[in-house]
């Protein structure tokens, strides 16, 4: 076996060990949970068990329009995410373009970002009413300000010598923006989007708690009110999967971008 083959084998073994440990940890937690419920260490009315969750999932799928609820939550998350992306990008560009504007707005943005947005949700209901619009506003409000601040500070970190280069080639501020600042910020834009997709999900669920008639957030609140705790837990677990899938989608977009970067046209 050559040294290279030895290295490859060692590398593969390490990664297999990581994957197996992750699966093992997950399975043993499930088994422990199930055992704890069956042996009555935990009250399965409050804490459920994996088998209860699975049967509840099937029941909801068949009888309670689960897919409709998931679909609404997803749609609201997607709309919030797109609005967050477009508006925070445009605002960050404006802030970069007009230095004075960014200085003026900075304290306002910092305060708005630090504010716990869930505190605003009840107000949104008073202002906008219940329903999808309020939920989307809640979703946007959670991520928007942080997204603006992060995108803007990414733009600010552009290498000043690259900016000088554009100037020496006779470029103006718009050239600097389109030729250097935005292209150089793409990795930062992607990582901000990864954070935003998670925050949009949080915001939408909060919105559904207060203003929803549909969606997973509504199911969770409704389930708690009528003591259907199996429904609550099942919804939360579905949320976990949704969060993971959404994150993977953004990661896949990043992957496509990176590949287009290394494969020259």
């Amino acid at each position, binding site marked *: 076996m050559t040294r290279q083959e030895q290295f490859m084998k060692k590398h593969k073994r390490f990664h297999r060990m990581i994957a197996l440990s992750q699966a093992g940890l997950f399975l043993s937690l499930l088994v422990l949970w199930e055992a704890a419920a069956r042996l009555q260490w935990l009250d399965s009315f409050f804490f459920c068990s994996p088998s209860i969750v699975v049967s509840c999932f099937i029941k909801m799928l068949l009888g309670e329009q689960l897919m409709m609820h998931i679909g609404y939550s997803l749609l609201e998350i997607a709309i919030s995410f797109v609005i967050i992306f477009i508006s925070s990008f445009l605002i960050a560009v404006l802030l970069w373009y007009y230095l004075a504007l960014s200085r003026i707005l900075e304290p306002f943005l910092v305060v708005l970002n630090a504010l716990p947005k869930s505190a605003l949700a009840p107000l949104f209901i008073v202002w906008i009413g219940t329903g999808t619009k309020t939920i989307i506003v809640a979703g946007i409000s959670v991520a928007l300000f942080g997204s603006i601040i992060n995108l803007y500070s990414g733009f600010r970190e552009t290498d000043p010598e690259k900016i000088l280069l554009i100037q*020496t080639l*006779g470029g103006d501020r718009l050239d600097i923006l389109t030729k250097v600042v935005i292209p150089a910020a793409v990795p930062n834009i992607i990582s901000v989007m990864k954070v935003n997709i998670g925050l949009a999900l949080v915001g939408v669920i909060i919105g559904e708690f207060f203003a929803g008639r549909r969606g997973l957030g509504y199911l969770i609140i409704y389930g708690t009110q009528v003591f259907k705790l199996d429904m609550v837990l099942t919804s939360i677990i579905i949320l976990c999967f949704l969060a993971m899938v959404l994150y993977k989608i953004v990661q896949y977009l990043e992957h496509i971008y990176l590949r287009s970067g290394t494969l*020259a046209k």
Partner: protein
Amino acid sequence: MKPFLSFENVSFAYHNLKGETQAIQNLSFQIEEGEFVAIVGPSGCGKSTLLSLISGLFEPEEGSIIFRTENSRPTVGYMLQRDHLFPWRTIWSNCMLGLEIQHSKTKDKIAYAEYLMKEYNLWEVRNKKPNELSGGMRQRAALIRTLVLNPDLFLLDEPFSALDFQTRIEVSEDIAIIIRNSVKTVVLITHDIQEAISLSDRVIVLSNRPAKVVREIPIKLTCTDKSVLATRTAPEFNDYFNLIWEDLKGKEETT
């Protein structure tokens, strides 16, 4: 005939909250068309400020900078310390950057870029990304990015200082040939005395900040081979070196 470029009592200072820093004070010198002038000075003496003034990025606070082309500033090509090729663009598209910015991507200019890339061995790698190229190739690509704009005046701001010694000799050789073939007037800023002597027709030695002209030395080397390494063995080389060295040393001791 008027000189190509003339500095007349130019002063420039940087301003910030801590006060002002005089970078250049009452600086006067001339550069003739077709000359390769090296400007040497102790580090931090305002050399880069000088280039920014020539290229028009800064305006002098006092005095004036006069070009022979009275009303219009000549096209200035600028080469920086690092190549600053954009990693997200191919070599070809990096070389097109200046043309894109100046909205002058004409057929002629593109053909000229093709010619330059073929001439200087970059044509084969035009579709690669900068990180796939050697330091020397990257520096040549950066040079072509400026050359396609066909500048009247070429400003080099320590363009080799980020390279290791061997690459530095090779690249400065390359670049000197390319520039002499395609551009008429060149101003090189450097703190490397040997580089200044072997590349230029005239060396202007600057004092510590605020920069003033200490001495102007026309360089005449009696060697037939004008390559960068050969010029270093010319009999006059050491005398020039010592002269400039003394000037720089003297200036640094007084501060």
